[in-house]
């Protein structure tokens, strides 16, 4: 029974990682860049939702929607101002710019909202479901459910809609996509918008489960989710989902059975071992080099 309850809380944490990892992986797939500012978009989303609910007493749903709108706009603004001019630049330059954006968001949050931790209210209360000896909180159920919905919606979106097909085309070959009449810049913007919108949801769920909100809230989950995306094979949507869930479960088990303090070491060791066996991640495509 203990095992089962750890598994469930692991899946819940993993769902949050998966939602964040989806943002990383989509942006990576299409723009071939590691968007280090993604974790901080999560934090901004959480703050927006927090203030909407606590200061303006808006219902949670409105708060979440507001956070999504703000993050979507923020993601697009970041892309337009900081990343778009660097489309032809070496990838390291883009990486450093992303780090700059990350610092900027963290410090702007520090100035706007101060470093004192905010206690985030759960968006659906602290209710629990009793199943025999097993207690599952509503937040956990909601997190897993939302993750599944997002996963299926995204798979459908990329597979069946015009925009989704455009995204896949761009991630495969930008030049060819442009020749086919696809608006590459618009598609990339759209990807950032979707990724950032998801980040807002992830932020709210993260803070509902772990209710302390500070300007650096997003950075560690951001790094973990990035790890999850690589774990599953970066660029692959099912990979991000699988990687996120596995990472969450491994982390929770490591905390429960090995040691709380060493859990990060265990998680990252597993990652290294997996990458040794499968150098392109669990579901990543192995691309043969052409000579």
């Amino acid at each position: 029974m203990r095992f089962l309850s750890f598994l469930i809380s692991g899946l819940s944490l993993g769902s949050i990682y998966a939602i964040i990892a989806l943002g990383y992986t989509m942006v990576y797939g299409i723009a071939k860049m590691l968007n280090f500012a993604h974790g901080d978009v999560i934090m901004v989303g959480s703050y927006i939702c927090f203030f909407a609910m606590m200061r303006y007493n808006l219902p949670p749903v409105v708060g979440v929607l507001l956070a999504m709108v703000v993050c979507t706009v923020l993601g697009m603004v970041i892309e337009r101002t900081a990343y778009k001019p660097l489309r032809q630049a070496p990838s390291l330059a883009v990486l450093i710019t992303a780090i700059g954006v990350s610092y900027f968001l963290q410090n702007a949050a520090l100035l706007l909202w101060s470093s004192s931790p905010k206690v985030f209210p759960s968006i659906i209360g602290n209710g629990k479901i009793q199943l025999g000896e097993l207690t599952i909180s509503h937040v956990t159920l909601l997190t897993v459910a939302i993750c599944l919905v997002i996963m299926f919606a995204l798979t459908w979106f990329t597979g069946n809609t015009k925009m989704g097909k455009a995204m896949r085309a761009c991630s495969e070959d930008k030049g060819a996509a442009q020749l086919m009449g696809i608006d590459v810049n618009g598609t990339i913007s759209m990807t950032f918008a979707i990724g950032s919108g998801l980040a807002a949801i992830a932020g709210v769920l993260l803070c509902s489960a772990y209710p302390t909100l500070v300007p650096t809230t997003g950075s560690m989950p951001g790094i973990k989710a990035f790890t999850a995306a690589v774990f599953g094979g970066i660029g692959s949507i099912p990979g991000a989902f699988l990687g996120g869930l596995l990472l969450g479960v491994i982390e929770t088990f490591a905390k429960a059975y090995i040691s709380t303090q060493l859990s990060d070491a265990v998680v990252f060791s597993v990652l290294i071992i997996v990458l040794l066996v499968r150098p392109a991640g669990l579901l990543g495509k192995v691309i043969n080099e052409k000579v």
Partner: protein
Amino acid sequence: MKRKNTNKYVSFALVIAAYAIMMVLISTGKITRSMQGMLVPISAYIVMAISLNLTVGILGELSLGHAGFMSMGAFTGTCAALMMLESVPNTGLRLGISMVIGAIFGGIAGFLIGIPVLRLKGDYLAIVTLAFGEIIKSIFNNLYLGFDKYGLHFQLLSEKGIKLEEGGRMLIQGAMGISKIKKISTFTAGFILIILTLFIVYHLVESRYGRAIMAIRDNRIAAESVGVDVTKYKMTAFVISAAMAGAAGALFAQNYSTITANKFDFNTSILILVLVVLGGLGNITGSIISATLLTILPEALRSFATYRMLVYAIVLIVVMLATNASSTKIMIDRLKARLGGNKEEEER
């Protein structure tokens, strides 16, 4: 080839001149205390930047865990120095030995992480170095190490099991790190380490090894097909880079009275990467200048107080945009053409 040589002399001249000027300023008392306190960290960051430049700029592999090697060197070097308190009373010698030990352990860590790293490419390699940095941090955060006349006693997670004989002392206390460190690092030691690092890196770059390493960076398959042993040369570059970071860590740690594992986290790795990229990939002189400026910059921005990190972030973004965006690049090229005529040709 010719250009590389001039660059080399510029680096050495720059470091020696900076050292001489600083020494004069210190002896005449014209330098503020806070500036004087920054000399050792600046030296350590210069060595970190040069050593990371070896991995990122010259070997061409992105590493996001360079602070892990620094941490390794800082902890092992400082512990060694504390154990030698009585046996080696001369502080300069003790610092030297501790830096050597830091370098050895940094190199060992580099070798261990090099094994998986060699199998991976690009972003996967980057994430493994990141993971490695986090593992090192996590381990040092939970390591308890004591020392008495019977030798070293260590344990993970808690210090309960460690019983020390009389005269023994705890060296590493988990998340509290190492405390009561003797501050034996000096600017002169930093200067010597920088010169040594420069010497090693330039020697390496200009040797057969360096040419092989750069060949791997430029085209791995081509290099392999003409008989370059990719694994060997990649590992060599990686281990040397890690060893230099270890020595820098030992120097850095012994400038403070306490040091914790959290000081060498992901953000530190990123900071060093920023130094390298801003200085220019593969450009050693650039690394030295950017390490110096970017360590001073947050201090210099003190008058902005609360806004300084924000300003730092904006400066970072603007510099990257200005130097890399295609529109500004065209502008700069035009400007160069108008000003210098055929300057471009001369450089080649």
